[in-house]
């Protein structure tokens, strides 16, 4: 098995091992063992960097369902490698951090098992070449995210957030699956690479655009793009390490990865360019707009994550234009956007991871994340403050941090797209840099809120639950590493650019890896620089005057939010299904019987009529003697009479008439064993009926409405007729020879001259044994029901 296939499976195996390990290791935190997994995987993957940056790709296949074209095939190129390194690298840091963050009272084995499950699934998503395998892993990430959000499941909000994220992402996932199947219908393969190679023949196919939008639906729901972003703020109920890992660094990037992965397939079309770019820009703006009003630091970070994901998404949209031009100077011009997207993808994971960890530290050390209760923490948590500042300033796009570089590239790309000569960008293209700039101003404002409202100003120690002190050193290691990366990438961006981003660019825009620019921090007094300066000035003013213009937020009524829409939709769904269910699940036995018999008549009778199986042939009948006819007549009269009698005794006796007449019929039909058994059983049954009726009330007149009676009669007659028709048809036609003649050798085979006995006692002896078991069970049931004490008293308590 290839090492990379193993890399996907190792986290799953490790997750399965955790419960056993947990019992063995005693006091040592299980997290230390878990940490080995991502660290080892990170090293394995990092060793591939030289090969990949040289332009190689690695592919391996493990057959799963080859007849359906579904194979466990993996493919490692630059794009997958970046994501895989993020998953394992951030995974290591987050696990290290969580060892100190989680309290020993939390259920650690669950936490780490879910986390490893997620890690394996996420690696599966980014390494799979087969669409259906990718889909399976994709849904597994949704499930592990659900489990992790609901980790503190005793909280109502955790359960709500978990359900919301699952419903929205799985809804999108289903759409994506439909898109994948459409792609398969078009191209007859599930392999992403093969589809990308042959898609140019299918751009006119009727399914091309539906498939595109369905795949995008999956990507947008997963990456919390407008208007599906509403699940991400509620997902913040998860423990902070989870938020840092799943809901900012990795899982929410799965949608972005999907867009990047499908750019070679759908990119270069106007629909892809505008959908991805606009959805990204709207998300960018709306996320940053909402982030400013938040008072909970984690909610603020959630909206900022939404906003930054929108930024990356829009960059991938803009970059897809390069595929229209192909390999050339124009292609390189627009391909810059894709490069910026990949760059920002990495940068965002570093600074947002650091910020989440900082917020986690504040929450952990102080007991609150509400900025109205925080302030002045700089003197108590100076190290944490440093990390917060580095992370926020990087996110705001200030110099000396990696965010500055990718932000400037973002502006360059948006300006390039504004003057795009295709896709009718001339009319609306100017909107792109305007939205980008406005959203960046708001980004600057909320970044300042994070730093200044938390760490500067007057300390409000009375409002805090604990006296703030720096956390244990172990909690600071991970944010320290990330902060070093933030600064390090600024000073040596091309190390990252040449070794990881360039090959990844080739993965998104095939054949254009050479278009990767050389990253520089200073490129003269260009428009981008003025845009950054404008952000700092305007953003600064807006931050200072925040309390005057904050009224803007109350302009939107609360009832108009997407959250409200979601809640209403869910409540309506529950109500309607409840109404529908209680409409037919009435709790009234005759109704259920009526459904069953009507269904029987419709299905069995309908099949009989529509398949033309109905045939009636009397020629094979045995002759009827007059006394036999009389006997049957008596039985029919007795049966019908049961319907009309009022007395219990009469109805029991009439049932007895039926039973004993059947015994006589058995005699006539050469079945002495049956006749004997029937006589005995019928006698016992009649006695039993009489015995029980002694305890049961007198039969009342069946007080059911007349139309119900007619309906019941109709069902009964229809049922009887169906049985007659089926029986007649079966009797008239023989499909194959009867197997009964085999049993006529019973003397040779079983040593019995009575064939019926030989069948019961020998040929089907096992059935007879189980039959006596049934009798035994029924006997136990009867005995217990009679002996059991009346449970009236405790039952009443249960009801309440």
């Amino acid at each position, binding site marked *: 098995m290839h090492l990379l296939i193993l890399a996907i499976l190792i986290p799953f195996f490790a997750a399965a091992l955790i419960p056993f390990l947990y019992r063995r290791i005693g006091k040592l935190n299980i997290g230390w063992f878990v940490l080995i997994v991502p660290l080892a995987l990170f090293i394995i993957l990092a060793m591939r960097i030289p090969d990949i940056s040289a332009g190689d790709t690695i592919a391996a296949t493990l057959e799963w369902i080859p007849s359906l074209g579904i194979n466990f095939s993996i493919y490692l190129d630059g794009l997958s490698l970046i994501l895989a390194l993020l998953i394992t690298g951030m995974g290591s840091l987050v696990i290290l951090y969580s060892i100190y963050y989680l309290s020993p009272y939390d259920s650690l084995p669950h936490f780490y098992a879910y986390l490893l499950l997620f890690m394996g699934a996420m690696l599966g998503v980014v390494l799979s070449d087969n669409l259906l395998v990718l889909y399976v892993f994709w849904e597994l990430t949704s499930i592990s995210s659900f489990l992790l959000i609901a980790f503190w499941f005793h909280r109502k909000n955790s359960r709500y957030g978990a359900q919301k994220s699952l419903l929205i992402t799985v809804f999108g996932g289903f759409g994506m699956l439909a898109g994948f199947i459409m792609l398969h219908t078009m191209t007859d393969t599930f392999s992403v690479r093969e589809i990308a190679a042959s898609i140019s023949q299918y751009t006119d196919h009727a399914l091309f655009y539906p498939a595109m939008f369905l795949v995008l639906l999956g990507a947008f729901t997963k990456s919390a793009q407008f208007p599906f972003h509403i699940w991400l703020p509620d997902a913040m109920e998860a423990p902070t390490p989870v938020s840092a890992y799943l809901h900012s660094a990795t899982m929410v990037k799965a949608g972005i990865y999907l867009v990047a992965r499908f750019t070679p397939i759908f990119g270069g079309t106007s629909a892809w360019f505008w959908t991805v770019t606009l959805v990204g820009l709207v998300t960018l703006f709306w996320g940053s707009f909402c982030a400013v009003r938040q008072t909970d630091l984690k909610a603020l970070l959630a909206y900022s994550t939404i906003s930054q994901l929108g930024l990356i998404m829009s960059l991938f949209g803009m970059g897809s234009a390069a595929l229209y031009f192909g390999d050339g100077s124009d292609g390189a011009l627009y391909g810059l956007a894709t490069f910026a997207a990949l760059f920002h993808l990495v940068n965002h994971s570093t600074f947002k991871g650091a910020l989440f960890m900082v917020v986690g530290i504040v929450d952990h050390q102080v007991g609150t994340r509400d900025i109205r209760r925080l302030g002045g923490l700089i003197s108590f948590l100076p190290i944490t403050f440093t990390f917060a500042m580095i992370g926020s300033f990087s996110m705001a796009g200030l110099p000396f941090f990696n965010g500055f570089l990718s932000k400037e590239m973002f502006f360059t790309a948006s300006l390039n797209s504004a003057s795009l000569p295709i896709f009718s960008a001339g009319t609306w293209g100017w909107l792109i840099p305007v939205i980008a700039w406005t959203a960046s101003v708001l980004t600057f404002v909320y970044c300042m809120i994070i730093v200044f409202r938390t760490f500067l100003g007057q300390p409000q120690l009375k409002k805090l639950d604990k006296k703030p002190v720096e956390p244990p050193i172990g909690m600071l290691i991970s944010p320290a590493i990330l902060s070093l990366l933030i600064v390090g990438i600024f000073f040596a961006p091309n190390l990252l650019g040449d070794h990881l981003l360039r090959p990844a660019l080739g993965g998104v825009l095939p054949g254009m890896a050479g278009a990767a620019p050389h990253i520089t921090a200073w490129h003269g007094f260009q428009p981008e620089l003025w845009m950054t300066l404008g952000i700092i000035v305007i953003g600064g003013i807006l931050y200072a005057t925040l309390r005057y213009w904050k009224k803007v937020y109350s302009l939107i009524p609360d009832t108009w939010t997407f959250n409200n829409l979601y809640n209403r939709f869910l409540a309506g769904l529950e109500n309607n299904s409840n109404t529908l269910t209680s409409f037919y699940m009435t709790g*009234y*036995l*005759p109704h259920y*019987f009526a459904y069953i018999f009507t269904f029987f008549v419709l299905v069995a009778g309908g099949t009989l009529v529509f398949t033309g199986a109905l045939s009636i042939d*009397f020629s*094979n*009948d*045995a002759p009827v003697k007059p006394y*036999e*006819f009389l006997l049957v007549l008596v039985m*029919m009269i007795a*049966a019908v009479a*049961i*319907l009309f009698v009022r007395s*219990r005794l009469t109805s029991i006796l009439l*049932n007895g008439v*039926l039973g004993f007449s*059947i015994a006589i019929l*058995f005699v006539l*039909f*050469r*079945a*002495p064993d049956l006749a004997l058994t029937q006589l005995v*059983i019928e006698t016992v*049954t009649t006695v*039993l009926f009489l015995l029980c*009726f002694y*305890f*049961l*009330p007198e*039969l*009342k007149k*069946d007080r059911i409405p007349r139309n119900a009676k007619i309906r*019941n009669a109709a069902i*009964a*007659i229809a049922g*009887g*007729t169906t*049985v*007659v028709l089926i*029986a*007649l048809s079966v*009797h008239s036609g023989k499909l194959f020879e*009867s*197997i*009964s003649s085999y*049993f*006529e050798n*019973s003397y040779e085979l079983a040593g019995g001259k009575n*064939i*019926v006995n030989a*069948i019961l006692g020998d040929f089907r002896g096992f059935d*007879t044994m189980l*039959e006596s078991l049934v*009798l035994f069970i*029924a*006997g136990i*049931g009867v005995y217990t*029901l009679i002996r059991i004490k*009346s449970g009236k008293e405790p039952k009443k308590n249960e009801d309440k």
Partner: protein
Amino acid sequence: METLIILLVGVLTAVAIYLVLSKSLIRVILGTAIFSHAVHLLILSMGGLKKGTVPLLGEEAESYVDALPQALILTAIVISFAVTAFILVLAFRAYQELGTDDLEEMRGVNDE
């Protein structure tokens, strides 16, 4: 003969269905008992009636009637007896506990 028995089966089935659909638990139980009668006759008539002699090899006859349906019915008779006995006792208990044999009144309360 088979057609006659099949018609009888039809009448028995219709009566049984009507009883099972009624409100009174006792009638429902009677209905199930009649159901089993109907099914036994149905199985027997499907094997063909009076096509030979009793399925005892000692008879040394030309042909025997089909023994397989008889074996099946023998099992069915016993099982249906067990089921009838069980439902009867169940009805008895239900009446003791709830004070009614009317299914309308037995309608389950919402358990939430």
